[in-house]
């Protein structure tokens, strides 16, 4: 059963996605006690694409993303990023390879200026996971700080850059978190419901920003409930239900797939 789905997925993949896969997941399994949260999931994410993972509540989407980033260690299966395994690495090592993560609740440094928030990420990219440099002052002449200023301008937060991050609106906090990911020069961005809890206005602004970032060639994997977001952004959609892949293809293909309709409607009954 699972084998068939994998085969289906791969044939579909060749037809649609341009470019080589940047992320390859093969035969991933994760069990929490009696619950098989992820059941033999395989998935390829094409370089430069926006790939959405959708599915009803409890389908294992967040668990899947957490397996990518080292927050949860999968029981079996392979996760390869740019052809190298990232399984079992600590989160900061995975991030240093070029993956960034946007959380459901924006994770920022609240009582710090926006510039500091983004500078931290630029420094992490420049200096690696640890550098003991306690002498040189971190002023306007610093390359990381200059980069942070430029990125804040790019995401449209330049005029609030000296204010504390905690005072931003929900949508702007998300922009800041994305700015942090841009400063990290991530090649692959994992987004967990990036528009959750946002007004329609903020949602559309976030979609626009994500489109802009895509022009830099950053690959994205998005977990989303909001079909408006999925169909405005994604070039490819994978549908998870009860921990397994039930469909994979272009948004149009997925929209008309009977299994997907059943999964969503079945949950409603």
């Amino acid at each position, binding site marked *: 059963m699972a084998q068939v789905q994998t085969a289906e997925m791969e044939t579909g993949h060749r037809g649609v996605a341009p470019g080589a896969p940047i992320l390859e997941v093969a035969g991933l399994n994760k069990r929490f006690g009696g619950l098989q949260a992820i059941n033999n999931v395989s998935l390829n994410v094409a370089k430069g694409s926006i790939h959405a993972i959708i599915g009803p509540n409890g389908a294992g989407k967040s668990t899947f993303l957490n397996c990518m980033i080292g927050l949860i260690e999968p029981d079996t299966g392979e996760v390869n990023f740019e052809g190298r395994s990232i399984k079992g690495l600590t989160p900061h090592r995975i991030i240093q390879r070029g993956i960034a993560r946007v959380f459901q609740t924006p994770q920022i*440094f609240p009582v710090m200026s926006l510039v500091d928030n983004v500078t*931290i990420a630029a*420094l*992490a990219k420049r200096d690696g996971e640890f550098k003991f440099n306690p002498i040189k002052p*971190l002023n306007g002449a610093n390359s990381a700080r200059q980069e942070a200023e430029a990125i804040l301008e790019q995401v449209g937060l330049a005029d609030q850059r000296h204010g504390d991050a905690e005072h931003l609106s929900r949508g702007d906090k998300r922009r800041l978190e994305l700015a942090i990911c841009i400063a990290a020069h991530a090649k692959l961005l994992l987004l967990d419901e990036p528009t959750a809890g946002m007004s329609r206005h903020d949602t559309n602004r976030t979609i626009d920003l994500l489109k802009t970032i895509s022009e830099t060639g950053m690959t994205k994997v998005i977990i989303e409930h909001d079909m408006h977001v999925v169909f405005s952004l994604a070039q490819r959609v994978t549908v998870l239900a009860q921990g397994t892949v039930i469909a994979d293809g272009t948004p149009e293909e997925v929209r008309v797939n009977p299994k997907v309709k059943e999964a969503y409607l079945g949950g409603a009954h």
Partner: protein
Amino acid sequence: MSTETASAPVRAAGNAGVKTFGREITFMMIFSAIVLTMPFWITLIGGYQGLATKIMVWAIFAVGFDILLGFTGLLSFGHAAFFGGAAYITGVVFRDYTSEIIVAFLASQVGVMILAVIIGFLSIRRTGIYFSILTLAFASMLFAAALAIFAPFTGGYDGLTMRTTPSLFGMPMQGLSVFYMGAFMLIFGFAVARTLKNSAFGLMLRSIKENPMRLEYTGVNVWAYKMAAFIISAHFAAVAGFLMVVYEPYVATKFLHWSTSGEVVIMSVIGGVGTLLGPIIGAAFLMYFENVVQSFIGEQWKLVLGLIFVLVVIFLPGGFMQLGSMIWKATGQKAFGGAPPPEGPRKHDSERE
């Protein structure tokens, strides 16, 4: 609201660096002047020369502790291990080997570094209250060990006594010369901590306090930075412990006791966590209170001190530094003359501990 308006004054930062440097020098000169003249002005307010030296000891301890608690947000209840550990090593060197303070200084620093690496390695895997309890446990173990299995070296419950007068290159170190050594160590330590605060390293430490998960998921080895902060603050504590024994050639068992760890926490909170200057003021206040005010109000002094502590925590969560910045704002910033504004902690700093 923020999208369209592009920013004009982005690139005003260039010559601001020179200005900041000038302000920093002015600030450090004023600070040094106050510290170096302390033995003279402290007698005017009822103190004595030795009290000034004691204030140096605790101020150095508190500055180092602020790097850990104030920047990194790690509340260690075991820093007595480093203060007392260095004091005992210094005492043993003076009693059994030499009265040369350079030897004792190096021995205590090396000893505490080993201790800090071990305790840090075992404690920093846990966060929050568990970290505090682990550090407390390790320090208590060391205290128990000093009184029991190490008693032949430490003198057990009697403390470690010696008949040596510490000396620097043969010159005896007593009275004012000990104070000035301490004062230079404090000024140097304070400058080091301020430099560190403004560096990239300091930004990483401060961001641990803000959101360690975001930092880890930005590709930073949070554990390594915590470990570095822990070891640095342990070295400050070791300098203080060493200085204490040079000031008064006797090692009390209390130096290793948990109440010593507690005292430095109280100093930091009263003064203003994360401000560096605050904990120094807190240390001076507590020492002054314990040694001078005590003689006026008698046995109730601990009660009064407790009351002050409670009032500060409730009404001034940013400590005396918050009070300072409130006065600074109320007086239209004129009262402080040319000095840079006191860096009051941001409003949430202590509430989120």
